[in-house]
């Protein structure tokens, strides 16, 4: 298990390969961010019948670069009431996980036929991903949990009220979506039989029907997509920064490149999460290779799938208003988590049924039956809880005011 490049021990070639891979990964994400910001602004502009950035470079391509340079040269302020150390640490805490998560994504490699995605370079076998830890998926979950700290601490350490509200929202919403995210990933792990992203991609090789999006029955994918959007603080779940409500939330007090780093992290996370979704559900770089070297086609398919997700995120942002805090929590706890948990149990039952030689149809029917009963029970519990809460809440006196001739009594 793990990246075969380390199997033959360390030597100069291995170090070189690792260094080059890290550099490529880094460059890919950085260039991706520059492109993504431009892409988002252009697409949204198009959807809103505007022009979008068109001054810096051809079609405004250099706009992000110009903005970045501007941010670097701006004055870096930190509020007097801030906790200096944490305040300065927070931007790095949100950028680093975004980079690290991308290391486990296979961005290319031929997985069809006899190939298992290895590439022979300088006498060493390697995968086209920076690292392939045997616990890849756990690493993903760990990193997305660490990313919460960056945002939470940024809001807390600013020593100001709006960022504090933002960080409270962040800790509550991101932590609860972590659960739904994890449960839908478990479905993938269950079918692939491995936590390593390389193994997960290998297990999906073949045709579209072998991809996890089909094999897991679409539901975990939808749950993962929604949870990932919330995890990324992308609209319509961007209530952690909520410009209109809490004036930017956790990054209200940040300026200069520290502010830029939060943006960098946000877009980097968007790209990384899209890449993760491609890896977990859409077969990674898998796809047909009609002519030419299959390796180049694998890069092509990976990029196309990635772009599809990026476009989806931009589209959501253009189309939807923002959720409210309590609605976000309702969606997470009352719908996504039970749904993904139920689906996971169903998939597990089918797996066991297959091992034991049970009839699949019967297993599915029984599973659905239990799921319906459980869902009914859950809905009943929610309704009872709502009613109890309403009973506690007293009506406001101004609703009982009456209009009389002499005025309101």
């Amino acid at each position, binding site marked *: 298990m793990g990246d075969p490049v380390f199997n033959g021990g360390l030597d100069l070639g291995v170090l070189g390969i690792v260094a080059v891979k890290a550099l490529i990964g880094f460059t890919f994400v950085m260039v991706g961010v520059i492109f993504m910001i431009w892409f988002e602004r252009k697409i949204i502009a198009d959807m*809103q019948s*505007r022009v979008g950035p068109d001054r810096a470079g051809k079609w405004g391509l250099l706009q992000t670069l110009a903005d970045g340079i501007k941010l670097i040269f701006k004055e870096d302020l930190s509020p007097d009431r801030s906790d200096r150390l944490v305040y300065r640490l927070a931007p790095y805490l949100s950028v680093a996980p975004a980079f690290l998560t991308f290391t486990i994504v296979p961005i290319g490699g031929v997985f069809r036929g006899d190939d298992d995605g290895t590439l022979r370079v300088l006498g060493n076998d390697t995968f086209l991903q920076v690292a392939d830890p045997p616990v890849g998926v756990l690493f993903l979950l760990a990193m997305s949990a660490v990313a919460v700290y960056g945002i939470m601490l940024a809001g807390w350490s600013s020593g100001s009220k709006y960022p504090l509200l933002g960080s409270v929202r962040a800790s509550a919403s991101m932590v609860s979506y972590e659960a739904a995210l994890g449960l839908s990933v478990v479905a993938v792990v269950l079918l692939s039989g491995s936590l390593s992203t390389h193994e997960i991609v290998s297990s999906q090789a073949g045709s579209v029907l072998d991809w996890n999006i089909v094999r897991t029955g679409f539901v975990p994918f939808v749950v993962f997509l929604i949870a990932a959007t919330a995890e990324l603080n992308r609209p*319509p779940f961007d209530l952690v920064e909520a*410009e*209109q*409500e809490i004036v930017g939330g956790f990054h209200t007090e940040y300026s200069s490149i520290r502010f830029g780093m939060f943006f960098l992290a946000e877009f980097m996370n968007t790209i990384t999460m899209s890449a993760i979704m491609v890896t977990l559900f859409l077969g990674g770089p898998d796809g047909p290779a009609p002519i030419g070297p299959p390796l180049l086609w694998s890069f092509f398919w990976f990029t196309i799938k990635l772009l599809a997700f990026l476009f989806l995120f931009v589209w959501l942002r253009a189309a939807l208003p923002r959720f409210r805090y309590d609605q976000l929590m309702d969606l997470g706890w009352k719908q996504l988590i039970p749904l993904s948990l139920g689906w996971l149990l169903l998939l597990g039952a089918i797996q066991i049924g297959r091992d034991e030689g049970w009839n699949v149809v019967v297993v599915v029917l029984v599973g659905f039956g239990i799921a319906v009963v459980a869902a009914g029970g859950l809905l009943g519990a929610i309704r009872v809880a709502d009613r109890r809460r309403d009973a506690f809440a007293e009506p406001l*006196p*101004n609703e009982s005011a009456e*209009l009389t001739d002499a005025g309101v009594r």
Partner: protein
Amino acid sequence: MTTTPHTHAPDAGDVEPDRAGEPDGQRTVDETDVTVMDPYATYEGAQEMRSRSEISATELLRESGAVLRLSEAAAAELSEATAGSEDETMIINMGPQHPSTHGVLRLMLELKGEEVLRTKPIIGYLHTGMEKTAEELTYLQGTTNTTRMDYLSPMFNELVFALATEELLGVADEMPARATWIRMFMCELNRIASHLLFFATNGMDMASTTSMIFGIRERDALLRFFEQVSGLRMNHNYIRVGGVAADLPDGWQEGVSAILDTLERKLVEHDELFSGQPIWHGRSQGVGIIGPEAAVALGATGPTLRATGVPWDLRRDDPYLAYDEVDFDVIVGTHGDTFDRYAVRMSEIRESIRIARQCIEGMPAGDWRIQDKKVTPPPRARIDESMEALIHHFKIFTEGFRVPEGEVYVAVESPRGELGCYLVSDGSAKPYRMHIRGPSFVNIQTLPHLMKGGLMADAVAVISSIDPVMGEVDR
């Protein structure tokens, strides 16, 4: 306002003034000796919200229900029901520099977590003394002044001032039908433009940037038409005492019909994007509810009142201009929540389109201003050939015309509610006193009641659903 006593050691080199402690016990400053104003505090005197421990029950009562004439016991109950200990609540300042307070409205909110317990609007950040200025301007100049108050519906401000002056002059009956209809027509277009901007900002406050752009885009078509008619996109000074500034341009019927046709098509798109959007429903339905009694007691008018189900529309209930000759419906809501206020406005756009269409068809021919030598300047051509006309023209624009002594109150239905103008004349060429009853100013009073018990995010939705224009609030 906290006056924090603390020391400043001049040579300590301490860059954190707020944390400057006693430098190594060198000297202790008597607490009453040096009081330095907290550099972070802003101060608006009695308007500001104070913490519960500092205020009396009477003040709490005034904040939360005096207008509704609650008993003191009921108000105390109200405050106890929602109050937590001081540690659990936080007073947060929203505005005047905040993306969603529609200009420079400032709200102080008492929050418990994200829940809003108390709200206090603080106004005055856009005060420019327009009512006082009006006393220094002639009646002819008056409309240039009032048009800048509610800058999103300038036509109505001009109209209400012009109507009041004409009432004092006693020339209201001489008004040619065409002038009246042009006024009505332009006002309805202005109502559409104003409600479209409401659609835009309301969407923006819900983070739907697309609806913001769409609303502004549709409004722009109307502004371009206003520019054709009056030469200006905003603050037109088009409706003047004695009629309007100019006749409608050639081919206006086709131009406006095209705009209205496009708009009707786009409204369907907007419904798809926003009105039928489940997230938007979740954000607005059942949020910021006010009952009809409370709304009436607080003096709310316009869509804010009509959303509660009270069919009060001055166009129908106290017809001015030619509103009794056109056919339109008064839109009312049922629940008085944010969604109803939105829906009422969106339906009013459609009603205004209906009225505008009737204006296009039924626009009478004739003069577009009163032919009263006292009020109306001579036509441009006459000035070239007649010395008397030139002098007359000069006199009207420098000295103005005298208005008989008296006082009058005229009200029109602006997009925000009852817009009234109270005018007192002492017989000179300038008003003795002018007062505007701004609907935004009155409607803002409902904010504390609408926001109680809601979340911070609801507060933003509620503010934009009231659609306040601060230029009108502060005047």
